[in-house]
């Protein structure tokens, strides 16, 4: 008799019920299986109606983020063997509306991300005809860590403020804003500052630090936010001084 492991998977069928429920499944236990493998097994063999997102299955697309035993994880990077001794409870990512089963609604995040202008804002008149931007390795290192974000939203699930305050822009969006602010090719810091320095843009953050703990790509969004608070505060202090650089 092959070894099995018990998965308790959250279900939400909006056309049938108003509250989520849990379905239990016995899934084969294989040492090299991750939680995503177990979910795929359930969908293939046990219950084809289970809905969830996944894609690359190797930790680079950011699709498969879910709560595993209360902690936000990439299910393609979380081994069943870590939970050998008990059941594995799989729920949709916290702090987001649930559309169905394990699928969450992310439009709010996408709106917040777009608002911080996550692209190179080039100098006036700069065009590709003038040749490529040159960047030294040191200039790259200034923002490289923040460019590793895969938009998996695990940091939003880990952050209590994201759940408590819908106006808070959130860890990933601010880290990505920093990725461009610190990029030597970018000229858009001022535009981003206008968006982010509003109440609860970045100021909702109380440096809990769970976003950095949970991030699967070591982006350190908490660090990015604190640095940005310092930048925003310095800019504000500078704006008080009559140095003739009024905007």
């Amino acid at each position, binding site marked *: 008799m092959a070894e099995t492991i018990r998965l308790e998977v959250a279900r939400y069928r909006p056309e049938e019920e108003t509250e989520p429920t849990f379905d239990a499944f016995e899934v084969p236990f294989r040492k090299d299986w991750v939680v995503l493998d177990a979910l795929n097994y359930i969908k293939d063999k046990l219950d084809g109606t289970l809905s969830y997102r996944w894609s690359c299955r190797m930790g680079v697309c950011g699709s498969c983020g879910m709560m595993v035993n209360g902690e936000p994880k990439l299910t393609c990077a979380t081994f069943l063997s870590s939970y050998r001794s008990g059941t594995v409870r799989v729920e949709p990512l916290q702090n987001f509306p649930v559309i169905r089963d394990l699928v969450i609604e992310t439009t709010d995040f996408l709106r917040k991300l777009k608002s911080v202008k996550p692209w190179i804002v080039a100098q006036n008149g700069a065009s590709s005809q003038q040749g490529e931007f040159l960047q030294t390795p040191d200039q790259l290192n200034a923002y490289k860590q923040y460019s590793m974000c895969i938009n998996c939203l695990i940091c939003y699930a880990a952050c209590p403020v994201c759940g408590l305050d819908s106006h808070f822009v959130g860890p990933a969006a601010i880290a990505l804003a920093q990725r461009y602010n610190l990029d030597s090719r970018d000229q858009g810091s001022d535009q981003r*500052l*206008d968006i982010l*320095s*509003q109440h609860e843009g970045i100021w909702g953050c*109380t440096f809990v630090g769970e976003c950095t703990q949970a991030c699967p790509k070591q982006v350190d969004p908490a660090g990015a936010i604190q640095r940005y608070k310092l930048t925003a*505060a310095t800019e504000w202090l500078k704006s008080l001084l009559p140095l003739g650089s009024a905007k």
Partner: protein
Amino acid sequence: MRQPSNEPILWVLFSAGGVISALFIPALLFLNGLAFPMDWLPSPDHGRMVELLRYPVAKLLVFLICSLPLFHWAHRFRFTLYDGLQIKHLNEVIGVLCYGGAIGGTAAAGYLLWNLA
């Protein structure tokens, strides 16, 4: 267009207060609150304290130690109530009580130190 927000100044005060609290308060609290009352170390008497505080630098330092940590508390406590107890509807009341308290304490510190000739 920048929407005016109070948050930058409040965060600056919070940070400054945090730095002052971290650097000065542990030693002062240990000495004044534990070591001197429990006679672990000889405590300065009234005359010595007044003599120390005669210097303007000392007065300024004590003023900052009394004022900035209160703003640090006000900011942190306001967010803790806001997030911890989810009482957003009382946001203005909490703000006034917290920062108002800090301003009051600052005023008291200023008055007391000014009078200590």
